[in-house]
């Protein structure tokens, strides 16, 4: 069960690969055939199940292109 998810803003992404290099769970890759509007290889969130929402991808991203959302359990009823 995934603990969170990330959103990659393709307007800001420069395809540098830092998020891919630092992710301890190897959840991110650089796409071979998807590109940003500026022509860079787009980073893709490919392994959402393993994501722990630790936030290192967002912390290391030089272009602030990644937002991290952590799932919170809410008890109802």
């Amino acid at each position, binding site marked *: 069960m995934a603990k969170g998810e990330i959103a990659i803003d393709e307007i800001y992404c420069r395809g540098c690969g*830092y998020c891919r*290099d*630092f*992710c*301890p769970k*190897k959840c991110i890759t650089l796409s071979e055939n998807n590109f940003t509007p500026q022509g860079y290889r787009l980073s893709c969130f490919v392994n959402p199940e393993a994501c*722990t929402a*630790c*936030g*290192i991808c967002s*912390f*290391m991203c030089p272009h602030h292109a990644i937002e991290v959302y952590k799932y919170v359990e809410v008890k109802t009823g």
Partner: protein
Amino acid sequence: MGVTMGERLFVIGNEALGWGALNAGCEAYIGYPITPQNETTEWFAQEFPRRGRVFVQSQSEVGSINILFGAAATGARAMTSTSGPGWGLMQEGMSHLVNGELPAVISLVQRGGPGAGTTRHGQMDYLSATRGGGQGGYKNIVLTPASVQESHDFVQLAFYLADKYRNPVIVMTDGLLGQMAEPLELRTLDFGSLPQKDWAVRGRANQPDGIRRAVSAMQGLMPTPPHPPYTGFLDLLKVLDEKYRKMEESEVRYETYLIEDAELIIVAYGYTARVAKEAIKWVRREGFKVGMIRPLSVWPFPYQIIREKASYGCRFLVVEDSLGQLVEDVRIGVQGRTDVHLVGALARHDPSDGGMVLPDSVLDEIYRLMK
């Protein structure tokens, strides 16, 4: 200068710090010259580049400590040295080293203060070194050699302890020990095995798992996995707390001298410990039962032995070249059970920055207390 292990050199304390670092496998020195530790910087400038190691003279002590942060983050053994005002400039960087959990060695050759003070000796940085002088209330081991040989040996111990706890360690000497020449036997000390530095920032190609490492000076607020994967600020505090407790349990070091039958115990470190020992030798001949406890680590402080001796009714005399800093730790140890006296910087034989606390003033105080 080609030297071999076991060789004996006649060197000053500041150079012994360098030899110790070399024998500990230190790979980089970053420093800025300041009296009275100039010879350390000079030694590294001369000896490190020719051995293929790194010497950097930084733009200031602020630069030194922050370059040291970077050097330590790569997993290399690195050190800096300073004194007086430089020590003050390094405080913020020290705090960041503790937050980033980086092992580094800082040698502090104390001089007289406050402010620019004097360029001569003193023991006036005790509280700032032992209480975490920078922001945020961190703790670090402080080792206090009292001879040239010990300066050499304690730098090696400092590198070991730094790696063991991933925390900066201070080797605190003073201007007198730094400028004093004594025989030094070169040796490599083995303190045991250390864990692998799998957290070190070495580049993706050099990581076995292919994942890059990050070290942050905001560890606890920023995620810096994989080692350790803190999820919040309290995670960091818990780890630091556990580390400090472990240091307090296992890293207390002290040396005793004739304390079995002593009625008065002198507590001193560094050069004043040697002065006090001389005074004890004199009064022992006259039948006064005086002994000495010399802390080899002033943080963690050997409170236990002092508490024990105080409970037997031993009185305490602190000899230090300041207006009274070590004396506060001894008072904590004694817990009000007996009295604690001080022979401080005002008891110097000459009322100048070159004056020393000599055995005479210690003798006078012993006679006053015991007659």
